[in-house]
């Protein structure tokens, strides 16, 4: 096994653990922020200002009784949360956290893999993630769960298309599907008259960015598009019957996908590790945090969509917009290349 | 066997294809049959891609791409038909749907 591969594995383990830790505190931050927005205090008992709350929650979930409904499809019931949980962080493998650094004389890349189909890889993993939800919903032998699963299936497939298409514009401009390459391109400087701007794709693809943002929220089943869970309608949707540790897997998966997609968005549209001063992983973290905050913000402010509104938004509003965006980008690209 | 032999992917392709075919032959659930057909298409794709690999060609890959595209179209239509079928007949048993026999 050669060194490169080994360093990749090591880095992957690091990323995974960081993600899990982040996820834990993501829940904490969310509760805190929401509390602030709702003029509450939020968790404050466990540890200083409730900082140990996530750990306590984790422990609670671990020790709770693992209930499997009698009519459940046992094997799938067991498989589904695992599937969700495993697939969520895998997508992070292609996100570049910076250039290579030298550790113990080895050059270590700050990404798990730079594959030439990274964007597609990300989408592929994202599309697989929904299996956990569907199967979970199905296996619970609960009508609400099933509905949740079905909703998830339809929703994710619909928004997957929007998500993918919104990235096409970026891909056209960058000419590559590799995230490393895309980040590299964004680190260039764009000079427009007196202005000196970073070549972030949010500037050249604003429409795509907005659409991506909306689609990403839907893709992660977060409010206001959390129809598959929809406590008020479906009593929790696909995870109604899940408890304890299995429930935590779904819970973890949701938050990890949030983080991963935020990282991805930051990489694609906001230049990744590129920053005004001293490029580095902190810039990426900062940008991702903005997205995460945006997620929380959305949850507290926007009410849940009705299901037909959700689908209508995807097919009747976003899809045409994103197609127009692709068309315009294509023309601009051709014009830029002098082919028109 | 130090190197990947072309025969390997061919056998894989053949095996998957035959499995898919046997599935079509033996199953009654139209959705399963549908999945078996998808499997057969995928097995053909393996052969395409494998030959492309063996001969350093791109044509195989491109054709596989077309196969995938057409398979997607077929899936949409097929599932639409199955939906319509269940709405009309309330069954997905292929043996109960024998209108062509009339």
């Amino acid at each position: 096994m050669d060194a490169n591969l080994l360093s990749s594995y090591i880095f992957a383990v690091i990323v995974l653990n960081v993600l899990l830790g982040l996820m834990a505190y993501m829940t904490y931050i969310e509760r805190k922020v929401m509390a602030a927005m709702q003029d509450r205090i939020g968790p404050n008992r466990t540890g200083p200002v409730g900082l140990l709350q996530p750990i306590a929650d984790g422990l609670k979930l671990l020790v709770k009784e693992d209930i499997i409904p009698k009519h459940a499809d046992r094997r799938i019931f067991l498989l589904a949360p695992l599937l969700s949980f495993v697939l969520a962080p895998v997508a992070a493998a292609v996100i570049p956290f910076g250039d290579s650094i030298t550790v113990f004389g080895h050059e270590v890349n700050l990404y798990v893999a730079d594959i030439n189909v990274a964007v597609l890889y990300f989408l592929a993993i994202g599309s697989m993630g929904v299996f956990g939800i569907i199967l979970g919903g199905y296996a619970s032998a609960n009508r609400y769960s099933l509905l949740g699963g079905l909703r998830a299936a339809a929703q994710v497939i619909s928004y997957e298309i929007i998500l993918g298409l919104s990235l096409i514009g970026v891909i056209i401009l960058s000419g590559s599907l590799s995230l490393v390459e895309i980040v590299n391109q964004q680190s260039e400087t764009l000079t427009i008259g007196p202005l000196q701007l970073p070549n972030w794709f949010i500037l050249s693809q604003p429409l795509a960015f907005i659409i991506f943002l909306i689609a990403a929220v839907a893709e992660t089943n977060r409010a206001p598009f959390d129809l598959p869970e929809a406590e008020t309608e479906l009593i929790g949707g696909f995870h109604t019957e899940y408890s304890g540790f299995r429930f935590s897997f779904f819970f973890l998966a949701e938050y990890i996908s949030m983080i991963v997609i935020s990282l991805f968005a930051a990489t694609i549209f906001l230049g990744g590790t590129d920053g005004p001063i001293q490029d580095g992983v902190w810039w990426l973290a900062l940008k991702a945090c903005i997205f995460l905050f945006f997620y929380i913000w959305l949850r507290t402010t926007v009410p849940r969509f009705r299901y037909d509104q959700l689908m209508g938004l995807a097919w009747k509003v976003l899809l045409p917009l994103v197609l127009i965006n692709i068309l315009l980008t294509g023309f601009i690209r051709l014009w830029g290349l002098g082919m028109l | 066997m130090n190197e990947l032999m072309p025969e390997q992917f061919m056998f894989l392709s053949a095996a998957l294809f035959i499995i898919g075919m046997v599935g079509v032959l033996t199953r009654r659930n139209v959705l399963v049959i549908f999945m078996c057909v998808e499997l057969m298409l995928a097995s053909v794709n393996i052969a395409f891609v494998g030959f492309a690999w063996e001969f350093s060609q791109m044509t195989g890959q491109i054709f596989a791409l077309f196969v995938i595209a057409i398979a997607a179209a077929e899936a949409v239509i097929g599932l639409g038909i199955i939906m319509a079928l269940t709405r009309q007949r309330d069954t997905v048993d292929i043996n109960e749907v024998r209108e062509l026999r009339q």
Partner: protein
Amino acid sequence: MAAEVLIFNLLSAVAIVSAVAMITMRNPVHSAIALVLTFVNVAAIFIMLRAEFLAAVQIIVYTGAVLVLILFVLMLVNPDDLPEFHSGKPMQNVFGFGVGLILLAEISVAILTRTVVAEPGPWNEEGVAAAGGNIQVIGQLLYSGYVLPIQATALVLLAATIGALFLGRPDEDQEPSPKRRTVATISLAHTRGADDDLIPALRAANIKREAGDRDLIMARDADEFTTSAEEEEKKGQSE
């Protein structure tokens, strides 16, 4: 490289085993999951065969879309209606396996006795790398030599879209079949209990629901399930 062969064989084995599982599982959902596994393995094999783009597409399209749709449909269908694996025609199974074995044998013979006739093309590993990668090569070839097929494919997809819309539309002019039991929406799972009669779609379908019925309701529009006062009035007059 033995590792490569090993990985390939491993992937193949998993693919074949899960494929066999797919056709032998009683529960179609299980079959679907087995198929997912097969497809993932196939995608992995694609990567081994230097078709990264196809691998991604395979996952996105087959696994992420087609199978999800299949699952979706599977779940919409009343599981009571799902037929069992053994169709009651044992001859069918015997013949099915028999034919499969013979064909497999024939193909195996063909594979083993084949003679290579094609000349290697330019797209070996170095060639692809020089051209900028797998995607770049496919893209260039696709939009230079295969413009017509890709247009045709686009047309097929368009037709499929229209066809799907057509197939999925509610039957307007058709008398609702009394046998039809599942009228539902994903959106409105709250059945209103005794208020069933107020749901026009159900009333139109002349469906009396019973306690144990599954009601998966597919509706275009939630408004379909709410009747305005005017409509009620109109109904009253006409009756």
